[in-house]
C-alpha cells in the first residue's frame, strides 16, 4: 500500500461559532508539489497553522511520515522534518540575513545555554552553521545580503531569505504560504524555477498556498481547492482548471 508523506484526515477547526476548516481530508505524496488554493478565508493558512502546531484541530488527525503531528509541541515539528514560511514575512529584523538562516538550523544544532556560556562546542557548531547558511544563501543568490539586517530589503528578496531559512532545518516537507504574493511577473517565473530546482536538490515535498494561478498551474502536481473551510475539489492542475465548482467558487456564480 502506498503511504502518503502527509495525511490530513477529517480535520475540523472551530473558533467559537466559526468553523474555519470542516471535514478536510487529503494526502500529499513524497516529492509532490501540492497547491492549496481557494478564495480568501477558505482556511488555507489555518491548515498550515495546524500542521505547524500553531493551532490544534478541534477534531481529526494530521500524520506526517506516519507520526501524529497534532500530538507534538510546536517546537518539535521542525526536527520532525517540517518547515514553513509565513504569509507576512516573519524574519527577525534585528538579526543579519546570515543569522536568520543560521537560526533556521536551530533544530539541527544542540549547544544549550550552559555549554554556550562556558564556550564549549560553540566555535565548531557556529562554523558548521555559518558554512551551511552561506551555501544556502549562495544557492538562492542571496550571498551579497549575508551581513545586512533582514529588514528594509526588497520584498522578493525577503521572501527568498525566508525560504533559505526554512531550508536550514533540512526539512522533508516545506510549507510555503503565498510565496509569489507581491512579486513581479519575472520574479514569479524565477521563483517557480527555483522551487522546482530545490525540490530535486533537497528531495523536498512542497505544499504551497498560492493565489497566483500561473504559478499554481505551472509547478503543482496536485491541487486541493478549499472554499469556506471545505474541500470542493482536488486533482491535477488540468482537471481543476475545468472544474465547474472551482470556477463558481472563484467567480461567485451559482452552479
Amino acid at each position: 500500500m502506498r503511504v502518503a508523506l502527509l495525511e490530513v484526515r477529517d480535520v475540523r477547526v472551530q473558533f467559537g461559532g466559526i468553523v474555519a476548516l470542516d471535514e478536510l481530508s487529503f494526502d500529499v505524496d513524497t516529492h509532490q508539489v501540492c497547491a492549496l488554493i481557494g478564495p480568501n478565508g477558505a482556511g488555507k493558512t489555518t491548515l498550515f497553522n495546524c500542521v505547524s502546531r500553531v493551532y490544534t484541530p478541534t477534531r481529526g488527525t494530521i500524520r506526517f511520515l506516519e507520526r501524529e503531528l497534532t500530538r507534538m509541541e510546536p517546537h518539535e515539528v521542525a526536527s520532525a522534518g517540517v518547515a514553513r514560511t509565513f504569509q507576512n514575512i516573519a524574519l527577525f529584523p534585528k538579526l543579519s540575513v546570515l543569522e536568520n538562516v543560521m537560526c533556521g538550523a536551530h533544530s539541527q544544532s544542540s549547544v544549550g545555554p550552559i555549554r554556550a556560556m562556558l564556550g564549549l562546542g560553540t566555535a565548531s557548531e557556529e562554523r558548521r552553521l555559518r558554512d551551511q547558511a552561506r551555501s544556502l544563501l549562495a544557492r538562492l543568490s542571496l550571498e551579497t545580503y549575508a551581513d545586512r539586517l533582514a529588514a528594509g530589503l526588497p520584498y522578493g528578496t525577503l521572501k527568498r531569505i525566508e525560504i533559505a531559512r526554512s531550508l536550514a532545518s533540512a526539512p522533508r516537507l516545506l510549507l510555503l504560504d503565498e510565496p509569489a504574493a507581491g512579486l513581479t511577473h519575472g520574479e514569479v517565473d524565477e521563483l517557480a524555477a527555483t522551487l522546482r530546482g530545490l525540490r530535486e536538490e533537497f528531495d523536498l515535498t512542497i505544499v504551497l498556498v498560492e493565489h497566483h494561478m500561473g504559478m499554481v498551474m505551472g509547478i503543482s502536481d496536485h491541487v486541493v481547492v478549499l472554499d469556506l473551510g471545505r474541500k470542493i475539489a482536488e486533482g491535477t492542475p488540468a482537471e481543476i482548471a475545468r472544474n465547474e465548482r472551482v470556477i463558481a467558487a472563484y467567480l461567485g456564480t451559482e452552479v
Partner: protein
Amino acid sequence: MASRRKWTSFAVAMLVLAWLAYVPQFYGQSELVPWSEALYFSIAALGLNLLTGYNGQISIGHGAFFGVGAYTTAILMEHNAWQFLPTLPIVIAVALVVGAAFGFPALRLKGLYLALITLGIAALFPDLVNRFASKYGTAGTSLIQPPRVLAPEWASGFAEADDQYRYYMLLVVGVVMLILAANLVRGRFGRALVAVRDHEAAASTLGVNIARVKVGAFAISAAYAAVAGSLSVLVNGSANAGKIEVFRQSILFLVAVVIGGTATVAGPVIGAYVVVFGQDFAKDIFDDKPELAPAVFGVLLVVLMYVLPDGIVGGWRRLIARRSRSDGLPPLPSASPAH
C-alpha cells in the same frame, strides 16, 4: 574588515580593563566606593540585559533578585561562618530556582503587564525579608552585617588595604560574568533569545522551545542580579532591603541597560558606570543643595536618551556605520522594484 573591528574592540576592552585594574592604586579608600558599586551594578545590568534587551521581557523587579543574593551571602557568612567565595555557587543556585519560579508565570505576560507584575516582586520582597530574615538581623531588623572580608597576606603586593582587595575580587567576578554573558549571546542560544523576542511564532516553527528559552532567560538574569547583590555585601558590609532601595535599584538596573544600549554586550556595563557616576556628578554640581541631585540626574538621563535613543553603544555603532559608508566601501545593493 570585520576582523579589524574585532581586534579594535578587543584592544579597547584590554585598555579599559587595565585602567580598572589600576583604579585602586590611583584612588583613596572613600573614592574607591563608587568604582566598586559600578562593578556590581554592571553585573546586575548585564543579567537584566539578557532578559530585557535580548529576550524582550521587561523586568522592574530585579532589585528583589539582587536582594536574594545579598541575603543568601550575608546569612551564610554571619550565621554559618562561611567564607565569601563559597557562598557564590549557593547564591547562583538559589537565584536560578527563584528566577525560574518567576519565569513560568511570566510566560503568560508581555510588555507592560509583565513590567507591572515584576514591579510587584520588588514591592513584595522587603516585606518577605522583614518577615523571615529579621531573626538573623541586628536587633530584630532585617539588616545583616556579616564579618568583613579582609585582605590576605599573599595579596599584600597589590592590595595592602582591605577595600583594595575587595575591589579586585569584584573585578575578577565581573570580568568572568561579562565573558559568560558574551559567550551566551554569541551562538545558538543568543539567536534564540532574539528570535523569541522578535517573532515568537516563527521562532517556534524553527524548533525553538519558547517556554524553555523564556524561563531560562529569567533564571539566568536572576542569577546575575543575585551575584551582584552578593558582591554588594562585599562593598557595603551589609545586606539590607529597604522598600525604596529595592525599587530604586530595580529601576536603575533598567536605566543602565537602556542608556548603555539594549541587546549589546558592552552597553549595560557602560550604562552601569553612567548611572553610578552620573549620580555622583549630579551631587557635585550643587554641593549645597543635595536635594537637587536626583533632578539633575534625571535631566542628564533625559538628555542622554534624547541624543542617543538607542543607547551609548547604539549611537557609537551608528557613528561607525556612517563613517565606513563614506570610506568608499561598495554601495549597498540597490532595491529592485517590488511590483
